[in-house]
């Protein structure tokens, strides 16, 4: 069953069509990767889906509902949660506090309730802390949970970004290059992490340049080039697709690895 449908989605920046008439479906519970050369429009596509950018044309349906022009925090509340390509975390907070703050959508208390420290507010805070502990253990960050985030090594920072996405209780999690800057071993661990997320019932949309990782983990792959969708299929089909090979070969400086 399709949890999300993307219909003729386009985004123009001035004369540049960063995303150009892209349509595909996301099935519930799958890991769907979006690949393509630098500047192909992958991050822009994610920002459109999560409503961080307004679309120039087309629409995004999530569980049948049009979420295209809604505010990003509303879309997040419905369960479409993105992480950021740049390592984006609250640098000055501890690892645990980062994830506790990100539990916003779980609160049963109003701001006034938190201000007065009502019983539900204290319950919420306690629950957020417990859940944050669970998520951190699950993502292998248990050992560094009291560190100030800015002191973490790169691999941990990326995982923390994912942890914050998980805290928002997503139905679809959009991960923008979660393995960037990781070595082979870290990537392997992170792959396990993404599979674990899916096992928790979360549908995963993944943008990633690491082709071997993409091939290992994806159920299906969507390929973008210059904003256009040039292929869609399972890893086998994508590996042998002429258009895809050409798109990557067309760029000499590109590491293909297909």
């Amino acid at each position: 069953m399709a949890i999300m449908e993307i219909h003729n989605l386009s985004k123009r920046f001035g004369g540049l069509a960063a995303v150009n008439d892209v349509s595909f479906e996301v099935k519930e519970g799958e890991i769907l990767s979006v690949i393509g050369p630098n500047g192909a429009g992958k991050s822009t596509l994610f920002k459109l889906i999560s409503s961080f950018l307004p679309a120039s044309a087309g629409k995004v349906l999530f569980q049948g509902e049009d979420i295209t022009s809604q505010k990003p925090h509303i879309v997040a509340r419905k369960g479409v949660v993105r992480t950021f390509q740049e390592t984006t975390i609250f640098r000055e907070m501890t690892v645990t506090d980062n994830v506790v703050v990100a539990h916003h959508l779980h609160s049963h208390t109003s701001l006034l309730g938190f201000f007065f420290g009502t019983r539900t507010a204290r319950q919420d805070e306690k629950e957020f802390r417990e859940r944050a502990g669970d998520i951190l253990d699950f993502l292998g960050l248990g050992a560094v949970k009291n560190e100030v985030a800015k002191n973490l090594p790169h691999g941990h920072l990326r995982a923390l970004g994912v942890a914050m996405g998980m805290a928002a209780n997503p139905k679809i999690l959009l991960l923008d290059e979660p393995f960037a800057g990781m070595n082979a071993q870290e990537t392997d661990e992170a792959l396990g992490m993404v599979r674990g997320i899916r096992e928790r019932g979360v549908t995963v949309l993944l943008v990633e340049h690491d082709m071997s990782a993409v091939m290992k983990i994806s159920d299906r792959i969507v390929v973008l080039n210059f904003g256009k969708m040039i292929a869609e299929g399972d890893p086998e089909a994508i590996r042998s697709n002429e258009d895809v090979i050409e798109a990557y070969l067309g760029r000499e400086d590109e590491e293909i690895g297909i």
Partner: protein
Amino acid sequence: MNRKQKILLLIVALAFYLVLLPYLCRDRNYLLGVITTASVLSVISAGVWLIFYIGRINIGQGAFALIGGYTGAIAISKLGLSFWFGLVMAGIVSMLVGIIIGLPLLRLKGVYFSMITLSLTETARLTAQSLVPITNGPNGILNLPLPGELSFFGITLIPDFAKVNKHIAMFYLSAFLLIASYAVLYRIINSRVGWLFRSLQQNEDLASSFGVDVPRLRVIAFAICTFYAGIGGAFFVAMQQSIYPATFSVQDSTYFLLYCFLGGLGYVFGPLIGTFVLYIGFEMLQGLNEYQPLIYALLMIGMMLWLPNGMLSLRLPFLAGKKSPLGGAK
């Protein structure tokens, strides 16, 4: 500092402020007036500080203090309402204007937000000058009566200021406003609301990615900020018993920033310390008055270079053990 030490420090500070200071100043009305003014200015600075805390620089606090001041003055002199009613009204009117202006304005970031707020103070002054039928224009509203009695079902809560030592009465009213506003601020910053504000300060996009209604939170912060300005402005006007379009100027708006800087942007009590040190310091050094803007400017530059986290970041022995200023609750 552990909890016990904190409470002890608070008790000592309150005893000094509420008992010793007024006792020492009992025959020095001028000095008591300076302390009263510093108290109320620190309420207004607290609002500016909160806006710093969500990552914006508000150079328009003078405008909202002026709005509060005029609201209070008009409520008392033209509408014949009591000072107490006028005080609350001043806070609310200033806050409502803050919300209406804030809704579009707070979308701007960085220098754009600051530039517009900077022009607000001047706009408020010109408006006050030209709305002659309501504000008396450049002549201002003079000879405001002192706050009258506040009673509740025949029980006098606060006596008529004209019948007691008005300097002492004004001082205690300002002290009450200061303590109430900083208690609220402290509670905000140390509750989850404070965590949300810190998340805005550090990255608004990240906050909205996990469902935080960023625009709403920004407006709430601005509403609190402008409420403080309104209350502070109305009190200041009641103390002076008069108001002019220039009662709060662009210069005042920038001084509020400096008070926050000096005390420390990462500390709830930063604006309080900053206001007291700078304002009282200058009143003590009367002769330097004409150089005040110059000295303030040099201080501002010096602070940014050598003490970017403010005076409270100095490792004084009794403050030892503080965490990094933005990291957590103080």
